[in-house]
Structure formats: C-alpha cells, structure tokens
C-alpha cells in the first residue's frame, strides 16, 4: 500500500483577517457570510492536506498538545461533536465536552454568564452549537479565545459547508461553474444557508428545490434560483444536496405527510435520472430514509463501484475540515497574542 507522501506542515496563513464588523475581536469561524473566496480556498487546501495525511499524525503535527478545546453543545449532536472531538484529539488537544443537560444553563444561568465563566478557565478554542440563530456570535463576543460555530439555529453551519465544498472539489476538481441543487427544508436549514454563501462565492450555480412552504421569502436575492419541481430543478445538475426534513415539520404544518413529501420531493432512482449521469448525491445527515431519500440511493456509494452517493465521503471530509479549522484558528490566536504582547 502506497502511503501518500507526508508533506511538511505548511506555513500558516499569510492572508490578513479583513476588518470585522462583529464585536468579536479574537479570530473565529462564525459563518461563511463575510468570508472571502481566498479565505475559503485556504481552509479547503488545509483540509485537503489533512485528508491526505496518514494516521496517527506525527508529534510535530500535534500542534494543540497541552492546549484545551471545549465542545459546548446547547443542542443535541452526535456526528458533529464526535467529529470535532476526534479532530482536536488528533491534534493532541485536551478536549472537554459540555452538553447542555450537564451544564449550569439548566440551573438558570444565562448564555453570557456561561461564556464569562468558561472564559475564566482560559480555554484555547471553543466549539459551540446553539439552537438559536445568533447565539454563538453573542457568546463569542464575551470570550477571549477563538470560537468555532458548530451550528446556530437556522443561521449558519460553516464547517459543514466547508466539508461539503471539499467533498465536491475532491470529486469534481473545481467548484466554479457547477450546477448544484439543494433540495428540501431550506427554510429551517443552516446547512443550506452556509452552502449558499460558500458555493455562490466560489462561482457555482445554486438551485433550491422544495415545496413553496419550505422556501423562505427573499432567498432569491441570495443569488439562487428557486424550483418547486424536482424534474425541472434537477435537469443538468452536477451535485444534489438533500436536506433533512424534521418529523415535526411534516405533519400538516409545512408538508402534509411523509408519503406526500417522498412522492414529490424524495430522491429516488427516477428523480435522480433527471440530473447528469455523474451527478453526486450528498446529505449532511442524519438521513430520514424514505422521506427525503430512498435507501437505494443513499447506500449506492461511490466507493462501491461507481454509485453516486458520497455521503460517507462527507463524513471523512468532516474530520479533515475540522482539523484544518482548529489549526488555522489556533495559529491566528497565537499570532494575535504575540502581537498584543
């Protein structure tokens, strides 16, 4: 087995942080909106570097040894939290996982009090997920370490967008000019919003396909085309991103029933055939099989003889992306501290 040649760790970022309007002064990754294309490319390059590394990383690569990363999750998560934890541990960090059930939030502490308390313990990086849009930015403005947004409400999920972009770039070489369909519950999806920001910046053409009740008003102004019919929307598509539809949203509120949703918007063999022959199927997980995606499509993986699903590749790209994010933000934090000394 040929191991990919281990490249020496590349010099850390040379670009300058653009002037930020957010009250958060330390470096952080709060959202894709506001990032420059060059910045995004840098994140993707570093993630790709980690994707090609053999494991375990060498002691030189364990740049977070002796440093503390806190995973602060106000909303349930399995894969994102595990992905961040694995990434941080591969870089040698001491990882603390804090879930809301075990925190003082249940005892009545406000978000800002929690932020101030944690800050006093001097962590090096905070990874935060919250069920309210904007809550991660609020918390970030009260701490002095770098904060990574692991998803806030229906606002942004920047690391998911980066790992999706990395997966696409690995398969399609480049993002520019691709036709990418994002299908499903766009209204409630932070994944959709971050992906729209990222992929439009990189020159891809985004189409949203969903029933009108799941398309939020004004989204066309974000540079996307809206479709309500899978056949119309999937024509000539290179990438199909399916979104999860939560159970409580499909019983007559936004969608009448799971069977109606699957009939019109679930990705099956027939609907997939409207897209390009080599179109890739993606899903941020966890999947609702038989609601937004047919098991047959989900399990037809690319590693398994030319299937179109790259859902497992996304998970692998997820860890690499989070390694890159931790690395880049750690270096930026160190630089900032150097400058203030």
């Amino acid at each position: 087995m040929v191991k990919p040649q281990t490249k020496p760790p590349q010099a850390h970022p040379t670009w300058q942080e653009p002037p930020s309007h957010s009250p958060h002064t330390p470096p952080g990754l709060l959202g894709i909106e506001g990032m420059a294309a060059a910045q995004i490319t840098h994140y993707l390059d570093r993630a790709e570097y980690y994707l090609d590394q053999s494991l375990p990383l060498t002691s030189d690569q364990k740049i977070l040894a002796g440093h503390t990363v806190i995973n602060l999750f106000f909303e349930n998560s399995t894969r994102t939290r595990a992905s961040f934890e694995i990434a941080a541990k591969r870089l040698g960090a001491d990882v603390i996982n804090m879930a809301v059930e075990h925190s003082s939030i249940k005892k009545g502490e406000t978000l800002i009090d929690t932020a101030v308390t944690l800050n006093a313990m001097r962590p090096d990086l905070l990874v935060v997920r919250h069920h309210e849009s904007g809550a991660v930015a609020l918390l970030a403005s009260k701490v002095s370490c770098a904060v990574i947004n692991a998803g806030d409400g229906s606002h942004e999920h920047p690391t998911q967008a980066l790992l999706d972009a990395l997966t696409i770039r690995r398969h399609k070489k480049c993002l520019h000019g691709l036709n990418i369909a994002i299908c499903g519950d766009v209204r409630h999806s932070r994944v959709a919003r971050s992906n729209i920001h990222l992929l439009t910046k990189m020159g891809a053409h985004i189409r949203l396909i969903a029933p009108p009740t799941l398309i939020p008003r004004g989204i066309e102004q974000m540079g996307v085309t809206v479709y309500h019919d899978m056949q119309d929307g999937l024509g000539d598509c290179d990438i199909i991103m399916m979104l999860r539809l939560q159970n409580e949203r499909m019983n007559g509120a936004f969608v009448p029933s799971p069977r109606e949703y699957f009939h019109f918007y679930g990705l099956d063999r027939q609907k997939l055939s409207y897209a390009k022959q080599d179109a890739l199927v993606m899903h941020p997980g966890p999947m609702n099989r038989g609601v937004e995606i047919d098991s047959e499509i989900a399990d037809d993986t690319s590693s398994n003889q030319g299937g179109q699903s790259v859902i497992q590749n996304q998970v692998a790209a997820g860890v690499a992306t989070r390694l890159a994010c931790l690395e880049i933000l750690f270096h930026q934090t160190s630089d900032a501290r150097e400058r203030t000394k």
Partner: protein
Amino acid sequence: MTDKPASMSHHPPGTPGRALLLQNIRGGEDANQRGKAHEISPDNLPDILIENGKIAAMGKNIAASDAKKIDGKNLWLAPGLIDLRTQAREPGFEHEETLASLAAAALAGGVTQLCCLPNTQPIIEDPSLVAMIRQALVHPQERPQVSTQIRPLVRPLVRPLAPPAPIIHPFAAMTKGLAGQELTEMGLLHQAGAIGFTDAPYAVASPLVLRRALSYTRFFDGLVMTHPEEPTLAPIGINGGVMNEGLIATRLGLSGRPVLAEIIQVERDLRLAEVTQGRLHIGPLTTAGSIEAVRQAKRRGVNVSCDTAPHYFLLTENAVEGYRTFAKVAPPLRSESDRQAVLAGLADGTIDAVTSDHAPRAADSKRLPFAQAAFGVVGIEILFASVLWLYHQNIVTLPKALALVTTQPAKILRLPLGDFSLGDLSQGDLPQGAAKNNYGIQVGQVADLVLFDLDQKWTVDPDKFRSKSKNSPMGGMIMTGRVEKTIKGGIIAFNREEK
C-alpha cells in the same frame, strides 16, 4: 389479451347510433360568422349536427337523413352549465342528497359539470375517495379497466345509472378533518383528480394555515377556495349568529351574523393571496364591502376570483320574516343595499361567476326553531333561470349572463376550454340586440349543450325539484326563461315534458 367490447372502441356506451340534428336554433350560428354582430332572421337559422358525442357540423341545409331531428323553434342554445359549488351529501348524508339525485337535478337545471364540497362523511381528504367520487356516475364500461381476476374488495359507490350523467369534480379538504389545523395531502389529492381545496362550508380561522395552503399549492398551481366569514364573529353552531345582523334580527330576537365578518375575512384572504401568489377563489360574496375589497384587489393584480349565489341577488333578509328557516343560509341573506352591491359587482365583472351553492338539507333539520335549524338552500335547478333574470333585468347582456355559469367557471377551474368555448363571448359589452346572436359554439367540441326557452314564464315549485331535499326559499317566485333540453355528450339527458 382480450378484445375490448365493441361498444368501447368508438362510441361511449349508451350513445345512440342516431345522430342529432338541431334545427332553427338561436345562438348556434355558423362558426365562421362568429364575432360578427348581426341578427339572423328567423327563417335563416342554422342547423347543428351532433355525431359521436361531438358537434359535427353547423350551417344551413345539413344533409343528415338518418339523424333524429329536433325542431328548436323559439329555443336558444348555450353550452352546458358548470356549477362551481354544490354539496353532494354522499357519502354520509344520503337521506338529503345522493350523487345520483344531484345528477338528475343538475341535468334538469342545464348543468353538465359540477363541483362538490368535501363536507361528507367521511370527509373527502383521501386520494382514493376523490377517485371514487369522480367515477361514481361514470358508466362502468367507461372506467379504467381493472383486472377481472380479483374481485374488488370494496364495491364501488355507484348504482347502475343510465348514462349520461354530469361530470363531478370533487373539491378535497384543505385541512385534515376540515379542522383548520393541518394541511391535507394536497399534492396526492391533486393527482387523484381533486379540482381544488377548501374547508367550505367552514371558514379557515388561522391566517397562518391559509397562508401555508396558498403557498404549498403553488407547486402544482392548485386552487384554494375559501368561505368568506370570519369564524369568531360569525361562528357556525351554538351561540353563532343565525341571520344578517340588523333591524330585522333585532326585532325577531335572533342573533346576527355581521357584514363585518365577511369584509374582514375577505380582506384577510386577499392579502394572503397577494403575498403567497397562490390561486384563490372566494365565495359566495354577499356584501358591498367585501365586493369592493375584491374589486380593489383585482386592480392591484391579485390572483383572485369570486362568486355569488342566486339567493343573494334575488332575495334580501326580508325573506327570513316569519322565521322561515328555508331562508337560513351562511353567509346570511343581506340588506337591500348589499343586494344592489351584488348586482353592481355582477354588472362590472368584479364577481366572476354565479354558483348555485346547492346545500340540500333534510326537512327535519329545517322544521325547527330558527336558531336550531340547519344552514343552506338548494338551488341547482334555478341557477340558469337566475342568470337569465340578470339578463331580463338588464343587469348584464345575454352572453355575459351565460358566461357567469359557463366560460367563467371553466376559467376559474381551469377546465379545458375546448369543450366550452364561447369564443369571444365574454369579451366586451355588445349592444343588447346584437349580443343575442353573438355567442358561438364550435364544430369539434363535445356536445354538452342546453336548449332553453328565453322568454318562458314559470313558477318555482320546490316540490317538483329532482333534488332529494326541497329547502328552497324561492317557492312561488315567477321566473322567465328555463331549460328545455340538456344534451350531455351528444345524448339528450334531460327533456322537459310538461309545458
């Protein structure tokens, strides 16, 4: 593979071998002359030949020696009527009306297509029930072939009915159980053949739910129909108002349903249609304020249509005097000034269509103290006479009067116009005299036609209605003009015997 029965291959079952030749018919001029405003002298009226269910030829001296001849002396021709809103009461309330009795009443009223509401038992909210009702009156031989190997588990809802019957287009429920909370499977219901979605005869309380319905139906361009009464100001049921709010209600000691309830609901629904760009139909409209709201909305370009019913322009709240429960209906019969506003709305085209709003109610649910009696009136058999009344009263021209029950409902329901083309009939304001001959019926279209006597006077007698329920407040009213023959798919489906 077995051959199809011979009767299926070319002709619909029951089609007589003989063609029909309509002679001396007014209104059925040659297609080439359509659009030219001119009087045709009585001895120069064209003939119409109907073969294989379609109009085969129009013109003078058509040679059809084997065709059955109908001398249309003094008869006028119009396309078959389309009734936008009726209550079939089947399944669930067969003691009040069945699909078969409704079909008979419809044909007697010149109606060849009708829509029915989902307030049956069970409620029409499942795709299979939509399919079943659509096929209920279709002759078994015309239905899609089902395997003969397996006996159907469910016997069809149909009884053997001699063809032809009017086409039934069911509305499906907009929300589950008509409860106004959760959307039904609108996409699947649409695919099963639902003509649209409505919670009628109930109003939708929540603007959020209606917004989502109007928004959701956009992906297949579905029609949403709403009942125009705000349900907290004008509830149906215990403690709800029972007649128009005002002096008469006060004098009679009955609780009122205010005009305001209709205005608020209509204005709200119009705003929701505007923001969602959904396809909205509201009806029946009965008040000056709500009609003005629609007039303004149409000027703003809102995608909306509306209708009213005969009792709202033929009657006022005075009909309730003496606690006449047959005049109890929701929205209620209104004041004279509101009736005038309805006529004005019909005259200027704000109101797109007239529907019977046929609501059969058993006698036992009407022979009660007024407040306890059921809402609803029957009217499918006087629908045509009521639009002719609009013509005789010089409210609208004859083509416009006919359009209110033919081309306009077809347009609202997006039924294929090929079958109902009246040409440019609904276009302009033609001089009264000229307009009489100006509507065209085209060669090649399905022969769904009404032959009517424009000037025949007759007295409404609900006991002679074909409908199983007789709850009409119009008994004794003298009407001018009535249906003489109804032709459905080239077959004489109704033929008035008594003169």
